[in-house]
């Protein structure tokens, strides 16, 4: 890197924490205190955000498309469920890591299938793996509980101190902590030379290999890591809901995840989190207005979002805040309007 001062300087600058990021995380934390009646839906948002973060790692940074990411989520969920049910590891945090590792092992082995193809074959392969696992979980119903799901999961208190309550308070903060730690890790990874090499692969695999990047090894590594993340998301799901049923593998789960990431944008880590917020909020609002036809409205919104374009929509939403910022007219406004022009 020493021979490319521009590049390394660019990388360091990109890795620096921006004020908006800090505000974002503080806001998430604040939500935990501001809306005590909405813990469960907020937990769902965080979980979906973590899951989307996992897909963003492979899609946004390495350019691997996947329609079967629920495979790892499901393996994580069932692993955590079985671990708790049979009392292998009573402590939830350790069980969480174990479940993530099990998903990572699966990710490692399936990555060889995934790196072979291009986009369309990858969609097929990933989708196939998820469907395969779903069928297996249904078939081995004496282990997984089949369609009825795992019954009677009891999750022990975290570190033996914090028991999960019915209002979901502990679940929420647990989820937030897990998300934050994994986010920090992901942030380090994508800004590291390894992360930069992934981006080179995404932009042009052939050129990347020409400058000496071991393309396949890098892809296997990131795919395995993403599987770990998805597995942890699944494990958190089981731990906070005390449920694991076949729908953890469902195609809808993978497809929703893709939607979330399309809504939020790929390749900057926050896309999944923002997408998850928007997606779940829309779902919640529409389905409480019209429990029967909410899918129509949410579909309509997605089509509109794609037609208008996320960036433009965003500019409209931020028009008022911009005005406010410009009133104060300092360096901040210059930075914001600079962003607008791009």
């Amino acid at each position, binding site marked *: 890197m020493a021979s490319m001062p521009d590049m390394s300087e660019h990388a360091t600058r990109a890795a620096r924490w921006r004020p908006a990021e800090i505000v974002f995380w503080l*806001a998430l934390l604040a939500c935990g205190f501001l809306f005590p009646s909405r813990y469960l839906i907020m937990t769902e948002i965080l979980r979906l955000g973590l899951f989307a973060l996992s897909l963003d790692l492979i899609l946004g940074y390495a350019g691997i498309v996947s329609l079967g990411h629920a495979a790892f989520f499901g393996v994580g969920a069932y692993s955590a469920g079985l671990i708790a049910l049979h009392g292998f590891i009573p402590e939830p945090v350790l069980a969480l890591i174990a479940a993530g590792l099990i998903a990572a092992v699966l990710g490692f082995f399936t990555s060889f299938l995934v790196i072979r193809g291009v986009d369309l074959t990858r969609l097929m392969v990933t989708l196939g793996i998820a469907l395969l696992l779903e069928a297996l979980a249904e078939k081995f119903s004496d282990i997984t509980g089949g369609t009825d799901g795992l019954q009677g999961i009891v999750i022990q208190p975290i570190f033996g101190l914090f028991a999960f309550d019915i209002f979901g308070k502990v679940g929420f903060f647990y989820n937030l902590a897990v998300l934050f730690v994994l986010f920090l890790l992901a942030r380090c990874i994508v800004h590291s030379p390894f992360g930069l090499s992934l981006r080179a692969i995404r932009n042009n695999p052939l050129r990347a290999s020409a400058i000496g990047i071991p393309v396949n090894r890098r892809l296997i590594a990131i795919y395995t890591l993403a599987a770990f993340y998805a597995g942890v998301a699944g494990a958190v799901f089981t731990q906070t809901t005390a449920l694991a049923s076949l729908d953890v593998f469902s195609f809808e789960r993978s497809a929703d995840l893709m939607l979330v990431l399309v809504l939020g944008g790929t390749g*900057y880590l926050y896309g999944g989190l923002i997408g998850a917020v928007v997606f779940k909020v829309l779902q919640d609002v529409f389905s409480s207005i019209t429990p*029967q036809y909410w899918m129509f409205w949410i579909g309509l919104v997605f089509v509109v979002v794609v037609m208008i374009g996320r960036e433009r929509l965003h500019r409209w939403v931020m028009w008022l*805040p911009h005005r406010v910022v410009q009133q104060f007219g300092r360096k901040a406004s210059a*930075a*914001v309007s600079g962003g607008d022009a791009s």
Partner: protein
Amino acid sequence: MSIRANMLLGAVAAAALVGGSAFSAHAADTVKIGLILPMTGGQASTGKQIDNAVKLYMKQHGDTVAGKKVEVILKDDAAVPDNTKRLAQELIVNDKVNIIAGFGITPAAFAAAPLATQAKVPEVVMAAGTSIITEKSPYIVRTSFTLGQSSTIIGDWAVKNGIKKVATLTSDYAPGNDALKFFKEHFTKGGGQIVEEVKVPLANPDFAPFLQRMKDAKPDAMFVFVPAGQGGNFMKQYAERGLDKSGIKVIGPGDVMDDDLLNNMGDAALGAVTAHIYSADHQSKENKEFLAAYEKAYNQRPGFMAVGGYDGIHLIYAALQKTGGKADGDSLIAAMKGMKWESPRGPISIDPETRDIVQNVYIRKVEKKNGQLWNVEFETFKDVKDPGKTKK
């Protein structure tokens, strides 16, 4: 990059919005019922029937009972248990509902059970039919049925009517396994023989490969359980495979011959004998009125799910009447225990010990009347309790 920074702020604003909408007013003169049903997805027909029936009942009987206004809050869980759990919890904590009701599938009823216990909120199960549900919480009351009630009776009936060899086809989940277990127990005890046992995935309604195996096993009859809503598809494939002509009769609990689908099944369904708790053809004043009102309102024949919903909301009304409007969980549950009334399906009551439903089970045969298919009842078994519990 700063666009992205802005998006972060936008997301924060959106999160603030959703949180803000959470707080809702709560009036003391209102009794709130949280109705959680699958309104989308594979089980949507169950949800729609129950929702229709509840609306119909409230239209007929008004929305005030014992001086309290009854308000129903409908939520869609798409039959996914973790949705059910979240919705039930939000209804209890945020909307302060007095009763949760609905529950299209067994796992959904299970998921809400701990909440019912902890919050002391009655859970009125209007659809799910696995025996063990009511044992999951002392606040669960059921107004649908259990698979054991109908499966034991069709098992005995098959033995008595010269059916020796039966192949079974059941959906592979708790109610299906209940149906199979109880049928097998009664049928083999009477000397019958199971020649082929097939479990089909719940989420995969392609019966064709399974039906071929049924045909090859050459039984006298096939015992079928598929959940409400899948019967139409099953009978279509049954006819396509020519099983109706091979002389293999369909027997089973009545779920497969669900009334709301029966008319579209075609003549292949003729002669199917099922044991069940409700037939739209049930001869009583209550049912005639219910049938006419439902058909008028929704232009469709009600099935047994609709009756489960209709009786469920009636039970809530009657309990409120009895407590004089007191809507806390313990009073309501106490009032519901032992409640007896004449439903469109016939006389029913709530067992005071198990909080499960006690009802007549009818043996019915599909016949054509005035160009329409009906489940015509020809034998009645009175006051059947859930065999899953009476055994203990």
